[in-house]
């Protein structure tokens, strides 16, 4: 069945993560001290899987009987997921002790959610998209409420669950209508018949349901209401995972479906939809974030705004904006994981020290931490020459090429607004005296995760062209 050695090689990430999950379950149930093993084991399998994925970027092959594609853009997405999850796990080791009781399931769920994301980003069949989405989402529902004794975690978990399952309902109904009108679940077949199908109102309805369902998952404006509460209530490391790799996975589905449509059909029929959610999310996220004093909640609103910037690329729908989105997603993943990593270091026991006042005077007390926080805030605000700037730049360029200059202008305006609340954190760190006694727990593992994310953000900022060319060549192939 699989004579080709490339195919076996490209299957390895899935097999490694899948076998890793089973092995982790066996370890968790048989060894009492699993907290000493599981994080390192998770990091190991994520690292191996990331390396194998990125090594196979040159060749694209279809695996598992036409279900999953590997290599190409899927390789880039797999790299983002695995490295992001590895950083989050590194960040979690000490944070979990502070946050509450240790549950071994934490690491198993992180691994399973990464498997789900990999299934989504490589999907060649709508069934795979659905299974991957659900594997990821169900793990996230549990992760959000992993500390079941804490009411804030319970609330976050339930809000996420109810609204996430609601979105799932839309996705599955949309998929059902798409299947019914196109008589196939293969994405390639649906795309090739797209011009014929788009005249069928049922197909259009199904497609819109699918778009709405995934708009929930990327946290775009009219479907954002769960984001602030869930991001604030969940454990900070989990929020880091959900807001970055989860968003990337949802965007990867948009890209694999829409990119194929754009490449075969010159007119983008979904521009109005994406332009609307992009402009509204950008403005809403940026404006509401100004009034937030809780840093976690501020980052949640900023994540809505970032979903808006990325959706500009979907509205423009050309190759340069697609590769811009992927670059943006990679940059956003690492800068946000870094920012949440610092938030998790500063955070005290029982959800304390999350307010912006806890950051006052950090520049004197802990210069390293403050410097990295400033780096991530500048990157998120999109100040050159950091990764965030080039992410926005490429997406805006794509929008102008696609004739959506007004959308790029709104993007620039909301970036300018967003500079205010990002820099506010920096101002607090360097120019305000601390009001209260802040105890920062020494946490070398989290710090190393932050340093790695920071280095990635700087590298992406220094060599954006190389990376963009890599992404573009993977997209065109």
């Amino acid at each position, binding site marked *: 069945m699989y004579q080709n050695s490339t195919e076996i090689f490209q299957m390895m990430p899935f097999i490694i993560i899948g076998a890793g999950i089973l092995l982790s379950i066996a370890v968790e149930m048989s060894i009492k001290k699993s907290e000493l093993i599981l994080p390192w084991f998770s990091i190991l399998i994520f690292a191996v899987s990331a390396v194998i994925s990125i090594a196979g970027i040159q060749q694209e092959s279809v695996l598992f009987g036409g279900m999953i594609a590997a290599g190409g853009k899927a390789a880039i997405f797999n790299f983002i997921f695995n490295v992001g999850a590895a950083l989050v796990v590194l960040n979690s080791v000490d944070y979990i002790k502070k946050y509450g009781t240790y549950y071994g399931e934490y690491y198993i769920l992180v691994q399973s959610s990464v498997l789900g994301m990999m299934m989504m980003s490589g999907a060649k069949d709508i*069934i795979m998209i*659905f299974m991957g989405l659900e594997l990821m989402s169900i793990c996230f529902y549990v992760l959000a409420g992993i500390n079941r004794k804490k009411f804030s975690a319970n609330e976050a978990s339930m809000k996420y669950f*109810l609204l996430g399952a609601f979105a799932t309902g839309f996705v599955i109904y949309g*998929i059902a209508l798409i*299947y019914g009108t196109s008589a196939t679940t293969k994405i390639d077949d649906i795309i090739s018949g797209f011009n014929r199908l788009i005249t069928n109102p049922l197909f259009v309805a199904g497609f819109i349901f699918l778009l709405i369902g995934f708009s929930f998952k990327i946290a775009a404006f009219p479907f954002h209401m769960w984001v602030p509460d869930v991001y604030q209530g969940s454990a900070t490391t989990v929020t880091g995972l959900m807001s970055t790799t989860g968003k990337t996975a949802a965007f990867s589905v948009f890209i694999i479906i829409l990119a194929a449509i754009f490449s075969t059909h010159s007119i983008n029929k979904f521009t109005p939809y994406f332009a609307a959610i992009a402009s509204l999310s950008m403005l809403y996220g940026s404006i509401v974030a100004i009034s937030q004093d809780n840093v976690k909640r501020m980052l949640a609103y900023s994540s809505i705004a970032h979903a808006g910037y990325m959706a500009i690329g979907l509205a423009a729908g050309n190759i340069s904006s697609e590769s811009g989105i992927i670059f943006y997603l990679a940059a956003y993943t690492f800068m946000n994981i870094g920012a949440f990593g610092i938030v998790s270091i500063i955070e005290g026991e029982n959800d304390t020290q999350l307010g912006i006042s806890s950051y006052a005077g950090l520049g004197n007390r802990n210069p390293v931490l403050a410097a990295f926080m400033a780096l991530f805030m500048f990157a998120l605000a999109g100040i050159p020459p950091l990764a965030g700037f080039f992410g926005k730049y490429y997406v805006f360029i794509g929008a102008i090429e696609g004739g959506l200059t007004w959308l790029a202008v709104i993007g620039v305006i909301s970036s300018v607004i967003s500079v205010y609340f990002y820099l506010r954190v920096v101002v607090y760190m360097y120019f305000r005296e601390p009001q209260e006694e802040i105890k920062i727990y020494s946490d070398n593992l989290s710090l190393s995760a932050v340093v790695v994310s920071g280095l990635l953000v700087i590298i992406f900022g220094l060599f954006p062209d190389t990376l963009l060319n890599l992404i573009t060549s993977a997209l065109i192939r």
Partner: protein
Amino acid sequence: MTSIPMEYYLVLSGFMFSVGIVGVLIRRNAIVVFMSIELMLNSANLTLVTFSSYLGNVTGQVFVFFVMTVAAAEAAVGLAIIIAIFRNKLTVDIDKINIFKW
């Protein structure tokens, strides 16, 4: 005996889906909201089976298996979350579960 036209099933499933949406939006008990979501999933299942049967294409029915499995997993997780909330707060009214405000 003439067979029932496909539109009837689609209208029924569309109706079920709408009932589910309305239930999610207006009900305040977490378990009832969850049941409404299950209704949405099941209306999608009905659509899939209908299309599968009328197209003579078995993929839709296979898909229904997966949807049912996912719905079961979701049900288990959802009930666990609701039980965790009930243990802490002794309520499942989603209006009373609102410690977060902006």
